[in-house]
């Protein structure tokens, strides 16, 4: 499609025929960036669901926490009273710090909220309600601690705009899209090839038999939450870099949408989370581009409903058996 646009824009009358195409491709690039955020969040939903059959409704708020952590960490690194690092160095250090700290938050949540319930063997419904409440606690805890004033992430990156045959691509967009791709492939590798990934898949199938292999179930579950939350933290940071205004509720709506994306893709399947995220972003952005913006969510969700109506278990979903 890109090469096609090159052909279109080279001939002598670019204004007449090239513009709609360019506009379309421009929107595609935006959709890829937006979809990267959805995909990064949806991967966490799908991982935890795939392994534990638990919908971790606090996950969207983990994304928000990730954005805030990146704000605090980078502000600290840049502050003149602190280490006063150069921006490149601050960026390079903020990424791992955000990922590690956010996964710490996710693991803490598992430890203090979900694990005790799991130990008692209660029905999953209660764990899901607990997750919802944890999300609300994170949102409102943030509001109470930091107040309603919105924070802005410091500039960590010089913005460059590349013009590729009339299409504007910023370096940040490229970074976001590449990160999402990299994360996907890394995760896919971990789940399909590594031993801990094998154990994650095994838990998804039969939690009962895992300890009989000498494998500590809790460790596998903690690892799952670490992965999911770390990825959400990375997503939160990239989101904050792209739209540098943070507020405590930023994870709620985005989180819900990412959850829907995961379901449409086939929850429990990491390819599904990825494809679902991009699909949702694509639909949203195309609707917003060509229809009044108030139609966006109505149309986007109607289309997703249609997909689920045709395939109730999502695009990659198989009935129950092959999760993750």
């Amino acid at each position, binding site marked *: 499609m890109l090469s096609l646009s090159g052909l279109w824009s080279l001939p002598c009358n670019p204004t007449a025929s090239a513009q709609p195409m360019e506009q379309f491709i421009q929107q595609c690039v935006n959709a890829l960036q937006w979809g990267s955020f959805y995909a990064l969040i949806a991967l966490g939903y799908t991982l935890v669901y795939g392994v534990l059959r638990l919908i971790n409704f606090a996950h969207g708020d983990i994304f928000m926490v990730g954005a805030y952590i990146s704000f605090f960490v980078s502000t600290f690194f840049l502050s003149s009273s602190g280490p006063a690092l150069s921006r490149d160095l601050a960026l390079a250090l903020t990424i791992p710090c955000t990922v590690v700290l956010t996964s710490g938050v996710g693991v803490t949540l598992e430890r203090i909220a979900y694990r005790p319930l799991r130990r008692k063997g209660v029905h999953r419904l209660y764990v899901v309600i607990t997750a919802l409440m944890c999300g609300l606690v994170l949102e409102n805890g943030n509001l109470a601690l930091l107040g309603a004033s919105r924070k802005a992430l410091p500039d960590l990156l010089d913005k460059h705009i590349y013009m590729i045959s009339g299409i504007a691509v910023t370096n940040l967009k490229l970074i976001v899209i590449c990160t999402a791709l990299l994360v996907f492939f890394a995760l896919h590798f971990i789940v399909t090839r590594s031993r801990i990934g094998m154990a994650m898949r095994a838990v998804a199938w039969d939690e009962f038999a895992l300890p009989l292999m000498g*494998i500590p179930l809790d460790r596998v579950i903690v690892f799952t939450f670490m992965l999911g939350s770390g990825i959400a933290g990375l997503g939160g940071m990239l989101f904050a870099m792209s739209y540098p205004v943070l507020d405590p509720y930023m994870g709620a709506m985005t989180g819900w949408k990412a959850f829907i994306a995961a379901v449409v893709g086939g929850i429990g399947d990491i390819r599904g989370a990825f494809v679902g995220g991009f699909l949702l972003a694509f639909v949203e952005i195309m609707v917003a581009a060509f229809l009044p913006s108030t139609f966006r969510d109505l149309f986007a969700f109607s289309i997703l409903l249609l997909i689920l109506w045709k395939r109730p278990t999502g695009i990659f979903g198989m009935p129950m058996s092959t999760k993750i």
Partner: protein
Amino acid sequence: MDTTVRDLSQKQGSALISVENLHAGYGKIEALHGISFHVEQGEIVTLIGSNGAGKSSTLKALMRLAPPESPTVTSGEIRCKGQSLLNVEPHNVVDRFKMTLVPEGRHIFGNLTVMENLHLAAWTRKNEDTRKSLDHIFGLFPRLAERARQRSDTLSGGEQQMLAVGRALMTNCSVILLDEPSMGLAPVLMYDMFRTLKRLNDSGLTIVVVEQNARLALEVADRGYVLDTGEIVAEGSGEELMRRPEIMEAYLGG
């Protein structure tokens, strides 16, 4: 019955596994009402009894598996190599005490290949010697070698049972508890399975086996215990138990 229980408790000093007056249950319902038995190093011991007698509950309690699938111990003691297992987590029973269970209904990881199932079972081991174990297992169950790359839920019932046993061997445990290993096997395969177990036992493996086909189990076993609604009602060597008419009638179908 009381006398047999007391006889047992005298031998418990040296036993590999000893269970003393174990009470265990699911929630408020008690399933095991104070059972005592022991297993010596290198033995094949069988637990027999009718449906719901508490055989599976006993094995799951030994493995320290968590509720709700497994019973909670309310009183009594489980020892392995002289140490109490009561506060040991199930993965550590495998890792430290080298005891594992082939559970009722196999519980293989159907979404993994045969090979992946076996590799996963080697979790607590170093890489070097798993290769040798694999060869050993494929020697015992050649069908598994043929299907190594196949998703394990596509195996036949009998092949899945072989995988479940193979997987337990892969953990390199020295004690294996088997819950109805012949379930769903054709008679020929059933005898094969028990012959294989006997061979493994000859090479040093300690085996505790629960079996519906009590006659077969008693033939192979060194000793047996008869469970009835959560209590041990008889014990003895395989031949002894088979000679007792009341046991034959009640549990072995005459």
